[in-house]
């Protein structure tokens, strides 16, 4: 692809992005029309000012004729116009800004909602930081486009038209002569846009290179120092730094050549034309000085809007880049598995909590299977424990049961119906997940237990907390259940965070419990509370538990030992111990005894 082709393609897609952005204005047609009308009024009264002064000069000052009443009227009209202009300009700006902010709100919520609907596999491969900056910073850049770029263009174009109409009214011939300015201005703008876009991209590129180099150096400084490469790295950074400076210097050159200084030359040239026009005319006929005054006045104001628009061209480019990224996210296709959308009556319900995995095979990347032909049954109320080395596939089983991912082969059956047949809310309500890393939200304790389920009453929350042994420590907090939870629950211990997440799950009264046991060590007292809570929670509920400590699952009805995605041993604790296989060795290992090694190895 040659450069021209890629440029035009870029241009076309930029236009597409702009059109898509502008479509968000549609619901605001009415307020926008109102804003345009106000802008029209303000512009009209604004450009009338010099005309009044022209009337004053030509009709009264030049002939030295000063009747009191008409002059006061004239002065009054001038002040009146000033006030109207000020008021309508104010209202017009507010109206535009409000609309712009609401449009951004729409875009933000839309992209946020979209992200909520994306599948976990999307989150697995997308760095959180970049996702956050799409939703916040990039939409902020779009806000800039609507609030300052577009409104500057609209307002200034109105003003230009207003001034031009007034000039036409003052002297049609001169105004017509001034029309040749239009193509010149458009040409300058075009040249500037083309040049500055290219340089702007170059300097952005070099800036990100500079930041990357700096970030990497700071992270790897210990390697740089241990390997004595400081001097080389300083030189490399120096080169990148200089490259960035050069790129920005080119930007300054283009700005200095084409922006305000050049527009000012244009002003002077126009002034020369106007003076020659009137001066030449005055050699033959009498000229109204007032007209010249007004004309010169308009000219002075004519070029300010053009300067304003030119300096916004860069932000325009930036906003388009940001919008492209936001729209990319909006068009993301890695959606979360969608549940049965039919009405609740036809979708199955979780009644008993019997769970069956039938020949389930799964792969995250479509290449390596992380689970192979997994089959097992958890009868209603039973506890099934999953044990195995890191990477053996325990967490994947839970991920599939939670329907975070769609299974490739086989079937998961709950109470006789396939997992896919359930409506998502039903699954979320009936299957309670307790994660290894209990995640707390900013808010208070109540909020963290209730989350968004408004049908959970305060009494339910306290009952749930009591049930999981969390009530005791919560009541000791200064504000008890209203105690604030900071970011990630920083001020609570690991054990307390776990108890809170238990309460959150229990408050929903789920039929099925999915436990991912924490590996983090907690103090003995809390540990006892946790174990007691887990025992109580499991009672009467089908439980699928990942166990890291074999001691906690000795009473499980079924223990599945996983190795490299397959079930290699199954049975209860005693059966597995007598098998003297992998489970037995893991058990020995956890007993913390190496001296029985001979026994284990011989087995």
């Amino acid at each position, binding site marked *: 692809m040659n450069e021209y082709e890629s440029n035009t393609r870029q241009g076309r897609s930029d236009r597409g992005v702009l059109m898509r952005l502008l479509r968000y204005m549609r619901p605001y047609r009415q307020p926008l029309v109102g804003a345009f009308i106000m802008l029209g009024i303000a512009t009209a009264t604004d450009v009338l000012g010099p005309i009044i002064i022209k009337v004053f000069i030509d009709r009264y000052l030049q002939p030295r004729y000063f009747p009191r009443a008409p002059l006061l009227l004239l002065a009054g009209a001038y002040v009146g116009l000033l006030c109207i202009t000020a008021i309508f300009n104010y209202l017009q700006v507010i109206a535009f800004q409000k609309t712009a902010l609401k449009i951004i709100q729409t875009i933000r919520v839309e992209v946020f909602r979209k992200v909520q609907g994306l599948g976990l596999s999307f989150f697995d491969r997308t760095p*959180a930081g970049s996702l956050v900056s799409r*939703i916040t910073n990039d939409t902020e850049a779009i806000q800039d486009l609507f609030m300052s770029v577009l409104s500057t263009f609209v307002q200034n174009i109105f003003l230009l038209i207003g001034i031009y109409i007034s000039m036409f009214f003052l002297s049609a011939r001169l105004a017509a002569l001034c029309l040749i300015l239009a193509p010149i201005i458009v040409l300058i703008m075009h040249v500037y846009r083309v040049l500055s876009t290219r340089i702007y991209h170059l300097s952005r590129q070099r800036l990100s290179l500079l930041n990357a180099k700096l970030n990497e150096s700071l992270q790897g400084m210990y390697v740089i120092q241990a390997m004595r490469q400081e001097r080389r790295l300083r030189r490399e950074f120096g080169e990148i730094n200089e490259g960035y400076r050069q790129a920005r210097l080119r930007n300054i050159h283009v700005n200095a050549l084409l922006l305000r200084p050049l527009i000012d030359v244009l002003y002077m040239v126009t002034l*020369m034309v106007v003076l020659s026009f009137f001066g030449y005319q005055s050699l033959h006929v009498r000229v109204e000085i007032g007209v010249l005054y007004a004309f010169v006045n308009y000219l002075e104001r004519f070029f300010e809007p053009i300067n304003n628009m030119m300096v916004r061209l860069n932000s325009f480019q930036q906003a388009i880049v940001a919008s492209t990224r936001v729209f990319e996210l909006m068009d993301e296709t890695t959606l979360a598995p969608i549940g049965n959308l039919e009405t609740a009556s036809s979708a199955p319900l979780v009644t008993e909590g019997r769970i069956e995995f039938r020949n389930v095979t799964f792969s995250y990347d479509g290449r390596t299977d992380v689970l192979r032909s997994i089959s097992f049954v958890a009868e209603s109320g039973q506890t099934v424990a999953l044990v195995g080395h890191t990477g053996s596939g325990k967490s994947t089983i839970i991920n599939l049961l939670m329907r975070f991912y769609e299974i490739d082969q086989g079937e998961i059956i709950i109470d006789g119906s396939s997992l896919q047949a359930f409506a998502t809310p039903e699954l979320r309500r009936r299957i309670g997940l307790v994660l290894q890393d209990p995640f707390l939200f900013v808010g208070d304790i109540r909020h963290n237990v209730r989350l968004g389920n408004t049908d959970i009453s305060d009494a339910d929350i306290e009952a749930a907390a009591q049930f999981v042994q969390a009530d005791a420590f919560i009541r000791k907090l200064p504000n008890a259940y209203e105690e604030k939870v900071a970011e990630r629950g920083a001020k609570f211990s690991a054990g307390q965070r776990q108890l809170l997440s238990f309460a959150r799950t229990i408050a929903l009264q789920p039929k099925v419990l999915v436990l991912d046991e924490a590996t983090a060590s907690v103090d003995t007292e809390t540990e006892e509370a946790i174990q007691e809570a887990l025992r109580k929670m499991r009672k009467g509920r089908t439980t699928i538990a990942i166990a890291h400590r074999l001691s906690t699952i000795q009473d499980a009805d079924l223990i599945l030992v996983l190795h490299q995605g397959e079930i290699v041993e199954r049975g209860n604790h005693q059966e597995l111990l007598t098998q003297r296989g992998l489970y037995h060795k893991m058990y020995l290992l956890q007993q913390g005894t190496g001296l029985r090694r001979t026994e284990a190895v011989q087995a």
Partner: protein
Amino acid sequence: MRVFLDLMWFFKMHKLRYLAGITLLMLVAILSLIPPHAVGVIIDDMQAKTLTSGVLVYWVLVLGATAAIIYVLRYLWRILLFGAAMQLAALLRERLYQHFTKLSPQFYHQNRIGDLMAHSTNDVQAIEQTATDGVLTLVDSITTGVVVIATMASTISWKLTLIALIPMPLMALATAHYGKLMHERFHKAQAAFADITEKTQENIAGVRVIKAFGQEDVETQSFADLSLDVVQKNIAVARIDALFDPTISLFVGVSYLLSVGFGAYFVTRGAMNIGSLTTFTLYLGQLIWPMLAFGWLFNIVERGRASNDRVRTLLAVKEDIVNRDGAIDRVPTGDISYDLHTFTYPHTTTPVLRDIHFDLAKGQTLGIVGRTGTGKTTLLKLLLREFDCTDGDISIGGDSIYRVTLDALRGAIAYVPQDHFLFSASIANNIAFARATAQMPEIQQAAKMAVIHDDIVRFPEGYATLVGERGVTLSGGQKQRLSIARALLMEAEILILDDSLSAVDAKTESMILEALRQERRNKTTLIATHRLSAVEQADLILVLEDGQIAERGTHDELMRQGGLYAAMYERQQLEVLVEHGGVSA
């Protein structure tokens, strides 16, 4: 305004540039007086009917010449002043970077990289803005203001000048008041924006919980509420922001009215003519910008000062690992001897190492084992001088490591750190990191010793394959082996492997260790590890427990002792078994 004094060192460094730039700015301000004057003269001549085509042509040509000169001058001062400020920014970044390379790991423990990045980018940018917009606004508004007002008062009418300027202080007051209101509201708007950023971060970090509890809609709703708050706070800002322009045009309009009204009075009294009046109003137009800019200046200067202070603080951080007085620049060689009574990290009180005494002859291999946090890494870092000994000494070849320069000491040591950091460059460049001039055969040789060569040639672009964010994703084991190859290419006498084989499998591990034994005869190796198989062949093994040497000896001696080491060894045999699914390998 203190920041201008703080930056004086730079202004002085580029004295000519700044003097030239400021002179040009002033010239532009003076030349800008010509066009209004020309307009006035022509109008007067037109009115007096004395205008001739000669006069007209003369003034039009003057205007043309003025325009051309002003264009050139404006272009030049921009290049001079903006260019200088960019040089300032580049210089500050350069200094910060150089300073960063001199600071020890201690500094990087105490400062977050994100903050350091922010200082090197945002703060430098704010300082640059002070040096451009700040200087420009200060000079331009003062020059233009003084020149124009002086001209108005002296050449046209000082009375009219005073009258016309009456609304200006009021305008300044009003805009200053708005500025204060804006400031408060703007902060609130920013806080609201920070809220949605935090909300989004939390949401994405907690995505599993949110999905597990079906909270997607609730989350969206609460995001929408927060985002609505941002809208409202921003509308509050807009309500003030929108006041500026109308207020200014109102006051300016009144000022024009006063000028024309009283000017007309003076005209009828014969004190001035219409041409001068027109000139006068044109001058008035030139005054608006300096008035506004002056208010704006304070904002820039405020920001610049805070940023400059932060950068200066950062540059003032003392290097704590430095060459001792009289240190000689000779790469040390020979037996290594540790003689540490205690070692305590800076700003802490509990020693992490106690009574570490051992000797290692040149060419021997040392194994250091023990649980996480028992001081293995610290022991090695002391040799590298990432930290300095607090109570005791380490010597190489009989001389304290503090008697040679840092550079010489580090030249003797090849280090493979625990967290294998690779740079975003090609694989070849990463291996040749410590010796950028290394030839391809040497690089390949090092890669072969680290048993990574076969992996590399399988990559799409072989040794030219990029690693890091934009390149190929490497496994932990591959990164470790690259990191080893990188150290081997240094061909240093001492090799430190700090738990550097944890992610490679047992077979590869023994291949690497065998290669090291073959290729590194007569060279010293220090290995810290969790996996005992890596030190079975070591000449001396230290078992660390709570920062002390609990056991020492060779593998066979330690196994015979039947203590900690023997227990660890047996446990690991079992672990290996479990990892392999219970089948003996």
